[in-house]
């Protein structure tokens, strides 16, 4: 088997604060294959965004990557000098953020920002390339939009421009951090359809960071469910929804409202833990219906529970029957 496109191994991020050190990412490992769609799912503070930033080495000080490795196309990004890293960020993979307004430059036109991202030293008209990219991301009236500034665009159009900028480098991997969270539902559906279409066209791999299991269900191949800085469960998407093997995943699925099924909601009691001074044991134990004494001591192993399916839980045997319905 060939090496994966991206291999993240035991990644750790710490953020010192006046109250103590926030352990934002606590030993995250996963791989992404070429052309694959992979989702990092979790609620606020689960560490999903920070994991993404750490992969690109875009953790803002005083936050710092305190351990682990990121192998992309055979190179360890953790050891790469900043200059080479810059090249990979621009070419090999790119990130699309939740809020395009703050990611775009407010004083440059759309054309200038796309042109800036285009590779140097090729014989073509930068303007034609920019125009072509705007067409591909479905911007209406692209000739006029080239001269527009970000504030003149709607939220959905800004996200399309972000995608055009991302595609300018023909990346092998696209990281999308909640790309549709700030958008209305009909616009969200448009942007998601666009991302899927572009991904096929360009043969890119995609890491989608999201809190929305509904989006995950429709878009991805594999899912990692994150909680308190760790991956709690990792599985193929169909497997995860049909046979969840972690209590948090079961709780998350039970919390999602549905327009189709008239089933009662099953909320997870309690709130996520403070990431400062996390003790040993499972961070979900205080909210877990299956938890017993052994859950709050020692490290919880990431156990293999099925084909490509892993769960960080001591009670996976009990869960198999519980989640059957």
């Amino acid at each position: 088997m060939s090496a994966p496109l991206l291999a993240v191994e035991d990644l750790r991020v710490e953020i010192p604060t006046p109250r103590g050190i926030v352990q934002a990412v606590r030993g995250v490992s996963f791989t992404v294959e070429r052309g694959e769609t992979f989702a990092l799912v979790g609620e606020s503070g689960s560490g999903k965004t920070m994991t993404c930033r750490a992969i690109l080495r875009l953790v803002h000080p005083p936050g710092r990557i305190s351990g682990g490795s990121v192998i992309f196309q055979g190179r360890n990004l953790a050891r790469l000098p900043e200059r080479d890293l810059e090249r990979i960020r621009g070419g090999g993979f790119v990130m699309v953020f939740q809020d395009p307004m703050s990611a775009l430059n407010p004083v440059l036109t759309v054309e200038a920002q796309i042109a800036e991202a285009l590779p140097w030293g090729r014989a073509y008209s930068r303007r034609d390339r920019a125009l072509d990219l705007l067409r591909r991301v479905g911007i209406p009236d692209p000739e006029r939009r080239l001269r527009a500034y970000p504030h003149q665009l709607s939220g959905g159009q800004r996200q399309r421009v972000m995608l055009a900028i991302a595609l300018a480098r023909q990346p092998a991997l696209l990281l999308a951090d909640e790309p549709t969270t700030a958008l209305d539902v009909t616009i969200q559906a448009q942007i998601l359809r666009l991302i899927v279409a572009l991904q096929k066209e360009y043969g890119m791999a995609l890491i989608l960071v999201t809190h929305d299991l509904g989006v995950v269900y429709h878009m991805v191949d594999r899912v990692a469910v994150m909680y308190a800085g760790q991956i709690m469960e990792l599985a193929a998407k169909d497997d995860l929804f049909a046979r969840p093997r972690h209590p948090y995943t079961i709780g998350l699925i039970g919390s999602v409202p549905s327009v189709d099924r008239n089933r009662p909601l099953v909320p997870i009691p309690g709130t996520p833990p403070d990431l400062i001074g996390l003790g040993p044991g499972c961070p979900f134990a205080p909210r877990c219906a299956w938890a017993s004494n052994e859950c709050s001591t020692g490290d919880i192993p990431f156990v293999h529970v099925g084909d490509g399916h892993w769960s960080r839980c001591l009670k996976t045997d009990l869960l198999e029957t519980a989640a059957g319905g």
Partner: protein
Amino acid sequence: MAEPLLEVRDLVKHFPLPHTLLDAALRRRPETVRAVDGVSFTLGRGKTLGLVGESGCGKSTLGRCILRLYDADRGEVRFDGVDLMRVTEGGLLPYRRRIQVVFQDPYASLNPRQTVAKTLLEVLDVHRIGSPRERGRRVAQLLTQVGLSPGDGHKYPGEFSGGQRQRIGIARALALEPELLIADEPLSALDVSIQAQILQLLLDLRASLGLTMIFISHDLRVVRYLSDEVAVMYLGKIVERAPTAELFARPQHPYTIALLSAVPEVGGAAREEIPIEGEPPSAVRIPRGCRFHPRCPWTIARCLQESPDLKGILPGHTVACHVAEVRLAVGGPPP
């Protein structure tokens, strides 16, 4: 039939844009944002109306007009038989007690420099409810009612998580034992697992207190759990209204169908889908004829000329669409 608790008739609220140089040069009146553009509905006691639509459709403005946080330009807001639009500012206090609101951002709507107990006491003080000692007891009771402990009263809003803050926002709204509760996107700022908790709390409170509610949300999934009836808004108007189960089973307006098809569902049954392209036009330049026609896949000539009225096409089910009427009559797919 008993008199409805709330009756809104032809409500209109336009916001004028700033007077521009161009306006002056052309000697015309400044343009207006037609946020609420003729909305009517009634709401029976103990019922919950879900008000759904995307940003800019006017759902929040409508809620604020009912609360008289905005003064509407035209129309009537009859609450328990009294037109609130004609009540003077001084005469509103008793109605402010009977109609309460929960906002989206629980942090922005709580005073960060006041303990939670003080915030709740203030509400009781303003409306002179009970003796000082009774007020203290009531605060403890309210906190318990929303799933916090009486001891939490000594803390400041900053010491709570988002979900807990929303519980405080709900406690404050319930302090005056309102008859009508307007909840404006109360779940939107919360994480999924916390959202489900607050949704459950609202369901429990409504059952135990017999509240009448207007639940404003952009999320059809959430609305389904709380509402007896759902009204879908687009660019300042209600385009479809039906009992909840009916609306989800047999949506008639193309915009409702489009909204339902855009919801990313876990699982999800087969249903008619309309993927819509384009974005809603600005509420400053509302299209002539049917306001949805530029994005509508069903458009016929009539839609460009004539704005459709809300018409009853099935029992309890009203729709503002020229094509839906015909479509229902012939029982076929769109023309």
